[in-house]
């Protein structure tokens, strides 16, 4: 099996899966009916992307794993998502800002994957990018509204920015796996994406009347399986059914 490609797929899929789960926690709790439906739609889109990626990973693994076993039977250290996406919902400003900071990365990444040398990933990117373009439209629009809204909304999104922005650097810390994917023309050059990412983020934040926090970037490690304390709680809930009733099916 192409172990590095397999691990790369887990990295891609875990970001969407963990963020998708975080958004699903809001189902029925959104601040308004309209935003509740919007966030849940985004969650479902992300899970759709995860399924495509994990089905492909299972195929690479000669069907020794399935999309379900990949999703539900790995422990914390076997997850490779960035630490940003596992951060708690806290309030609507946190939800929106976390979403925007991820969407901006995901959009650049999918944009590269449209020309990936891996045909399957290319096809998945072509399908996913339309969804992601809508996600970023939603999240960036809301960043501007909150940033330029009332004093309360401005303060709330500023607090969220100070907490979440320092996690963004992790997207671009190239692991061995990602380096190989770049050399094989399968994945992007993350250093190139980094420049574009922070340009775009800075422009949006300025438009929203927010300033870039001066806090240093935080410790990373998510892509190596080292996570914040939140992931364990997420997995406890996410994997509950499969662990309580092994091999259960819908």
């Amino acid at each position, binding site marked *: 099996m192409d172990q590095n490609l397999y691990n790369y797929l887990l990295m891609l899929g875990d970001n969407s899966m963990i963020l998708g789960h975080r958004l699903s926690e809001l189902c029925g709790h959104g601040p*308004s*009916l*309209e*935003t509740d*439906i*919007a966030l849940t*739609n985004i969650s479902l889109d992300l899970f759709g992307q995860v399924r495509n990626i994990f089905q492909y990973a299972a195929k690479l693994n000669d069907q020794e794993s399935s999309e379900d076993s990949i999703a539900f039977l790995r422990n914390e250290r076997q997850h490779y998502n960035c630490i940003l996406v596992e951060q708690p919902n806290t309030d609507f400003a946190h939800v929106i800002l976390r979403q925007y900071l991820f969407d901006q990365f995901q959009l650049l990444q999918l944009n590269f994957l449209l020309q990936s040398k891996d045909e399957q990933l290319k096809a998945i990117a072509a399908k996913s990018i339309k969804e992601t373009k*809508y996600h970023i*439209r*939603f999240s960036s*629009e809301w960043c501007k*509204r909150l940033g330029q809204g009332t004093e309360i909304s401005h303060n709330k999104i500023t607090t969220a920015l100070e907490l979440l922005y320092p996690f963004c650097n992790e997207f671009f810390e190239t692991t061995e796996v990602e380096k190989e994917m770049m050399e094989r023309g399968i994945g992007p050059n993350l250093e190139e994406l980094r420049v574009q990412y922070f340009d775009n983020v800075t422009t949006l934040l300025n438009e929203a009347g927010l300033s870039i926090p001066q806090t240093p970037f935080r410790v990373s490690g998510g892509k190596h399986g080292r996570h914040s304390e939140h992931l364990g709680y997420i997995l406890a809930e996410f994997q509950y059914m499969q662990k309580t009733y092994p091999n259960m099916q819908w």
Partner: protein
Amino acid sequence: MSDPNNKNEWPIFEIFIRSKNGLEHRHVGSLHAADATMAIENARDVYTRRQEGVSIWVVPSKEITASNPEDAGELFEPAEDKVYRHPTFYELPIELKHI
């Protein structure tokens, strides 16, 4: 539930969806939004998530002038006995649909 005098609540918009090109926009319901841009986004999520449409119109509900239900007698009842206004006396070619 929603109080039109409550300034803290988003205004209501009426939503019109065109289900496919060539057909007219139809009223599908209403929702809350801070402004027209947000109303379009919200309508996309609330009313087109099952592929219901290709185009969305939003109109602030307060911009709609409605007929008064009390006037229904004079407005609508006179048409009741005017069957000749229905074009039922024509033979329609079979090719014509949706009429």
